[in-house]
C-alpha cells in the first residue's frame, strides 16, 4: 500500500476568516481505491477543508496537488471538470427535472444541436444500473425518496469521470436500509479505483467502510490513521480532545427509575389519538419527569406523533388528555398555552431564523407566549439569553451573532434554549442530536437527563437507539406508522430487544446499524 501514490495531496493548508482560524496547516491525502473518513466535531474544519479543496474558498497558505500537478480550483464546477466531484448532505439537484436530466444537465448528449432525449434516458438508465438502482428515469426527481435522490446525485458525480468523490454527510437523512445500500455503492466505487472522501457523524459507518481516517480538531490536524489501528474509543477521544468518560458517567447519573416516574397521574395522555394517512390510533401516557424515548426507522411515524402532540397536525381520531382533562389541541399556540414545546427535526427550515441573532431567536417563543403587545424588556432578554448561553455552552458566546453563522450543534442548542426559556412541562425533541458532533451530543443528552430530574416530561425522538436507551424511562417503538410496542427501560431492555420490536413482523433483520 505504501508504494502507491496518493491521487490528491493537500499540504499545510491554512484558511482564516475574520476572527476565526478555520484551518491551520492541515495536511490531507487521498489514495485511489480507498475510502478515507474525515472526522471531527462541528467547527473542526471539515467543511472548510472540503470547500477549500473544491475551490469554494481560496487558501491563505498551502498547496493542493492532484495527480502530481498543483491545482487551485476556482469553484466546484472546475473541480468537477478535473475529476473532483462533491455530493452534499442536502441533495443539490433540481426536483422539478427528471432523474435523467439531473444526471446529465449541463452535458446532455446532443444530436445536430438538439438534446437527444432518448440517448440521455438510456445513458441515465445505464449510469443508475451501475449503482444497482432501477427506476424510471423520465419521472421527476421530486417523486422519489431522499435516498434515491442522494444516489442520483452520486450517479451524477461519478458519471463526470470522477477520480475523487467527496461525500459530505450523505447518510444523515437516510434510514438503515438506505444507508446499507449507500455503503454498498461506496464499496463498489472504491473497488473501481475511485478515491472517496467520506464525512459522517456515524462512527459505525466509519468503521464499516473507511480504510483510513483523518481527524481534525479546532482547525488543526490531529492525525491520519488506518482504521484498523484506531479503536473507536480512541477515535472519539481524538475528536473531542478530552477523556470521554462523560458518556459513561451520564449512564450512571441518569439513575433511570421507571417506577419512580410512573407514579401519580399522567401529565399528558394520548387516548386512541390518530390521524388518517399519518399515524394509526395509539395510546401513550407521559408523566412529569419522565423521558419517553421514541424509536423506529425513518418514516415510521415518529415525527407525526410529535406533531399530533404539538397540534402541528390535527388529530382526526381519539383525544388528548392534559392534566386529566380531555383537550383538543388545534394548533401549536394551543399547545404552547398548555406548556408543550416542540423542537423540530429540521432546525434550518422549521425552527430557526438564520438572519436573526442568537438572542432574538432565543426570545422568540417567549415573546410569542406573552403576546406582541408586551415586549420583553431588553435587560431581561440579555439576562436570560446570557444565562442559557452559559448553561448550554453555546459557542461562540455572542448573543448578537446571526444564527446562521453557528455550527449545527450550536444551532440546535439555540433552538433548545428558545423552548426551555418558556419553562415547558412537556418538551418534545425530534432528532435533537442528528448531524451534530459528539461533544454537543453529550451535552444535549446530559441536559435532557437534568431536565427530567427537575420534573420536566420529555418526548425524545431519535434514530440512535443507544441514546434512546440511555435517556428514556420508557421506549415507544414505531413501525409503519403504528405504535407497536411500549417497553419499560429496566435492566432487561437492550438495543437488541428494541430492534426486534422495530423489525418484528414483516420486516427482516435489516438493521446492522442503528
Amino acid at each position, binding site marked *: 500500500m505504501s508504494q502507491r501514490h496518493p491521487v490528491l495531496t493537500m499540504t499545510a493548508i491554512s484558511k482564516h476568516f475574520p476572527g476565526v482560524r478555520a484551518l491551520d496547516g492541515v495536511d490531507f491525502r487521498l489514495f485511489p481505491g480507498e475510502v478515507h473518513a474525515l472526522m471531527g466535531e462541528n467547527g473542526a474544519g471539515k467543511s472548510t477543508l472540503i470547500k477549500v479543496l473544491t475551490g469554494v474558498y481560496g487558501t491563505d497558505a498551502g498547496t493542493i496537488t492532484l495527480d502530481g500537478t498543483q491545482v487551485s480550483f476556482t469553484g*466546484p*464546477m472546475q473541480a*468537477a*471538470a478535473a475529476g473532483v466531484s*462533491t455530493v*452534499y448532505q442536502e441533495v*443539490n*439537484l*433540481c*426536483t*422539478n*427535472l427528471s432523474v435523467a*436530466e439531473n444526471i446529465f*444537465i*449541463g452535458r*446532455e448528449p*446532443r444530436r445536430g*444541436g*438538439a*438534446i437527444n*432525449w432518448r440517448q440521455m434516458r438510456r445513458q441515465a438508465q445505464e449510469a443508475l444500473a451501475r449503482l444497482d*438502482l*432501477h*427506476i*424510471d428515469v423520465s*419521472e*421527476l426527481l*421530486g*417523486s*422519489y*425518496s431522499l*435516498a*434515491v435522490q442522494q*444516489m442520483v446525485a452520486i450517479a*451524477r458525480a461519478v458519471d463526470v469521470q470522477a477520480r475523487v468523490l467527496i461525500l459530505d454527510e450523505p447518510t444523515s437523512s437516510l434510514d438503515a*436500509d*438506505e444507508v*446499507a*445500500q449507500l455503503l*454498498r455503492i461506496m464499496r463498489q466505487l472504491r473497488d473501481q479505483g475511485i478515491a472517496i472522501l467520506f464525512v459522517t457523524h456515524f462512527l459505525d459507518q466509519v468503521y464499516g467502510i473507511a480504510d483510513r481516517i483523518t481527524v481534525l480538531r479546532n482547525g488543526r490536524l490531529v492525525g491520519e490513521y488506518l482504521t484498523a489501528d484506531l479503536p473507536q474509543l480512541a477515535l472519539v477521544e481524538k475528536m473531542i480532545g478530552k477523556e470521554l468518560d462523560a458518556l459513561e458517567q451520564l449512564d450512571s447519573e441518569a439513575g433511570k427509575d421507571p417506577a419512580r416516574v410512573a407514579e401519580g397521574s399522567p401529565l399528558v395522555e394520548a387516548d386512541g389519538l390518530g390521524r388518517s394517512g399519518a399515524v394509526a390510533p395509539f395510546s401513550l401516557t407521559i408523566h412529569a419527569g419522565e423521558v419517553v424515548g421514541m424509536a423506529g426507522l425513518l418514516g415510521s411515524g415518529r415525527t407525526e406523533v410529535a406533531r399530533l402532540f404539538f397540534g402541528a397536525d390535527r388529530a382526526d381520531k381519539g383525544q388528548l388528555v392534559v392534566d386529566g382533562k380531555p383537550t383538543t389541541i388545534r394548533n401549536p399556540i394551543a399547545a404552547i398555552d398548555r406548556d408543550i414545546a416542540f423542537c423540530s427535526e429540521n432546525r434550518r427550515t422549521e425552527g430557526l431564523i438564520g438572519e436573526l441573532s442568537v438572542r432574538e431567536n432565543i426570545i422568540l417563543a417567549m415573546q410569542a407566549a406573552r403576546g406582541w403587545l408586551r415586549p420583553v424588556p431588553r435587560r431581561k432578554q440579555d439576562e436570560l439569553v446570557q444565562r442559557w448561553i452559559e448553561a448550554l455552552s453555546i459557542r461562540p458566546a455572542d448573543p448578537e451573532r446571526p444564527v446562521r453563522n453557528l455550527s449545527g450543534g450550536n444551532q440546535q442548542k439555540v433552538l433548545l434554549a428558545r423552548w426551555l426559556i418558556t419553562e415547558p412541562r412537556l418538551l418534545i425533541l425530534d432528532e435533537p442530536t442528528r448531524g451534530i458532533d459528539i461533544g454537543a451530543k453529550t451535552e444535549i443528552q446530559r441536559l435532557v437527563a437534568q431536565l427530567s430530574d427537575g420534573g420536566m416530561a420529555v418526548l425524545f425522538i431519535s434514530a440512535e437507539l443507544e441514546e434512546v436507551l440511555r435517556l428514556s424511562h420508557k421506549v415507544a417503538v414505531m413501525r409503519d406508522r403504528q405504535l407497536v410496542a411500549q417497553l419499560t427501560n429496566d435492566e432487561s431492555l437492550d438495543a437488541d430487544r428494541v430492534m426486534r420490536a422495530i423489525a418484528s413482523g414483516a420486516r*427482516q*433483520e*435489516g438493521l*446492522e446499524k442503528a
Partner: protein
Amino acid sequence: MTTTPLAVRADRAWWRVPQRHVPVLATFVLLLVMYGVGVSQYRAFSNIQVVFNIFIDNGFLLVVAVGMTFVILTGGIDLSVGSVVAMTAMVSASLLRDGVNPALVLVVALLIGPTLGFAMGCVIHFFDIQPFIVTLAGMFFARGMCTWISSTSIPITEGFWTSAAQERIRIGENFVSVSVLIALAVVGVAAFTLAYTRLGRNVYAIGGNPQSALLMGLPVGRTKIAVYTISGLCSAVGGILLSFYTLSGAPLIAVGMELDVIAAVVIGGTLLTGGSGYVFGTVLGVLVLGVIQTLITFDGTLSSWWTKIVIGALLFAFILLQRLVGIRKK
C-alpha cells in the same frame, strides 16, 4: 443481510396524468368549455374565422407572453414588456415618418428591446437585485422614452408596413394576418429552445433550484441575462406586430399589458415560482383571454371591463390550482 428494494413506485395507471401536466390540461379543458359555450350561444361563433381572429387580435400578446414564459420559468418577472412594446412601436413610427428605410427601421426596432433586456438582466444578476424592481425601473424608463419621442400618436403610412398590416393569407375560405404567422413561428422556436437546448433546460433548472443549478455547474448568470434579453426581443417583435396591427405608434398604447401577459402565462399553467410550465400552456393562456374578449364582444351588452373581471377570477382559480397540485406533490 437483505436490503429492501429502494425506489418503490406505485405503477401508474395509463390514464393518470403526470402531475406536471395537470395545470396545462386544466387550461385546455377550460378553453374547450368556453369555446363550447360560445358555439352553443351564438351561431356565428362556430365560424372558424372567429378562432383565426383571436389569433389576429392577440398575435403581439402571444409573442410577448412567450418571452415572459422564459422569465417566469426562471422564477423572475419582467414588468417592462408593455412599455418596451410601446417604445418599439413609437420608434418605428417616428423613424418611418422621417423617411428612414423600412429594413433599417426593422433592425433598429428589433435591437432596442433586447438591449434593454440585456441591461436589466445584467443589473439583476451582477448586483443581485430583485427582477421586480429592476424591470419596474425599465418599465418607467421605456414609457418615458415613448413620450419623449412624441407626446401624440404618430400614424404609419409607409408601404411595407401597410402591406404587412393588410396582407391576408388565405386558408381555405378564411384568412390570417402576417402577424399570426410570425407569432406562431416565435412559439415554435421558443418551444424548441425550451425543450431541446441546454439554454432551455438551464432555465428550468434555475427556476427549480438556483442554488443547486449553481452547484451543478450550470451557467446561472448567463442564463438569467439571456432570459431577460429574450423577453426584450419578444417585446420588440410584439411591438412591431402591434404597429402592424394599429398602423401607428402611440405613447400610451399597451399600458398595463405586462399584467395581461403575466395573467396569460399563469393561466397557461406556468408556476410563478419558476421551474414548471410550457410554451404550449402560454398559447392556451392567451387563447383563453382571447375567447373571453370574443364572448363579451358577441354578447354586445356587457362592458369590456367584464374581461378584466373574468380574468381576475380565473387567475385566482389557477393560482389556487397550482397550490393544490404543489401540496399534493408533498
